[in-house]
């Protein structure tokens, strides 16, 4: 739950130092959005959803991942964790790109199939 972002106004997004725990949290946020995006893309690909729902909800998922992407891209971590941070940042950017594609074409089943493959790979 994102409650602490409001309560403490810290630890979510931004470009400060990332603790190992925060790095883990941001990576989990990205993984969660990728898995959820894959479920949505699967339903778009099989014509089991509505266009408004697919468009709005994929947009919401993009907004959820963006702060994590920023934190992973700009955050500082101890040297031994930097490779993990960079990998997580690349993954986060790929998830945002895939979800934005779904958001732009919520009724396109071919796009949805491609997005589904990408997100399944990213969430595994």
């Amino acid at each position: 739950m994102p409650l602490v972002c409001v309560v403490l106004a810290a630890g979510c997004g931004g470009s400060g130092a990332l603790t190992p725990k925060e790095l883990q949290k941001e990576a989990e946020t990205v993984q969660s959005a990728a898995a959820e995006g894959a479920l949505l893309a699967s339903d778009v690909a099989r014509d089991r959803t509505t266009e408004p729902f697919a468009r709005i909800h994929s947009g919401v998922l993009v907004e959820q991942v963006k702060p994590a992407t920023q934190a992973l891209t700009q955050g500082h971590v101890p040297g031994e964790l930097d490779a993990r941070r960079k990998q997580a940042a690349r993954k986060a950017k790929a998830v945002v790109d895939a979800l934005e594609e779904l958001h732009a074409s919520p009724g396109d089943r071919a796009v949805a199939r491609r997005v589904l493959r990408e997100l399944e790979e990213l969430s595994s």
Partner: protein
Amino acid sequence: MKRIFDIALGILAAIGGFVDIGDIVFNVAAGAIFGYQLLWVVVIGVGAIITYSEMCGRVAVVSGRAVMDVVRERLGFGAGLVALIAGQLVNLMTLAAEIGGIALALQLLSGLPYRVLLVLGVLALGVVIWVLRFEWIERVFGYVGLTMLVFAVAAIKLRPEWNEVASGFVPGVPSSNLAVYAFFAVGLIGAATVPYEVYFYSSGAIEERWTPKDLGTNKANAIIGYTLGGFLSFALMIMAGALFFPLGISPEALGTVALGAEVPLGQIGLLLALVGVLFAVSGAAIDTVFSGAYNMAQFFGWEWGKYRKPVDAPRFTLGWIVMLVLGFVIVVTGVDPIQVTEFSVIFSVVALPLTYIPILLVANDRTYMGANVNGKLANVLGFLYFLIILAIALAAIPLMLLTNGGQG
């Protein structure tokens, strides 16, 4: 025959009206994070709301006094005023969350801009409250809210491991993440027992002019209605436990909840889920609007009641209009309704004892209640649940801070 029909209608309304945005958010999040492990907590929450709703309904029928009236009389003006302010703040936060939930559900259905839907949603609520009679408001939103039962069908279609589901009803302590587990336990009980439910229930008994002949209806509505309403909570948690938990999905949006019905059932599941959520949160919004107006009127001794013409209860009428406008103002600033929901549930837990202890005291007072005073069972359950409520009220804020609002 008419009495059976009345009971059935009341029960149906209670089922559809039980689940609000706080229940939806906490049950789905708990299922996604802990699977079925917290199902037993819902049983406690439902038991508490049954016990206290039955009690406050009985007090209202026998003494003709609703909860805030009783609070002022028992706690005195000073402490009563604290209870009133706490209750109103929680009502307002809950209302803002429900209004936001209405706009989010409408947006997921239509794709229209959120802020436009906020305005339309609040105007529609205002018109419904002004035009419809009390019992029809209760019934329309309760019945259509029954489409939330689609989550029960979704939960079954997702083929959960039923032996694991069954073991979720046995209280247990997880090997890790204990503080987050405790935070969700507090939130689940809080979501099931939010104070507006008893304010509304007791005032509703007076709105519907229940007499001592209706004590059976009161008991049936509370026991069967809330039990079946709790069934919807189970369905939400089992759905999330079966679908989101294995995939590591952490729900942070109302759309995720609807996705839980769409994945197993397709478009029809999605549409029923969104309509169900829309009517459930709209019903809860109306309940909180009225609760705010009831509380003010009962505390200060104004004329109140939807059954009265607005001109005959002008301060009550102004009260619900002001509540609606304030709820709208809060949510139109751009705050996230889901975050407001989390806050409102946790802060409502803190305010619970001030609402519940006066009910327990008056229900035990033979000078008020005569032959309908609490029996042994009602007292044992009442004191037991009050102890639980007291404990979670003390733990709520520390747990929220300790767990970063459930994030761990």
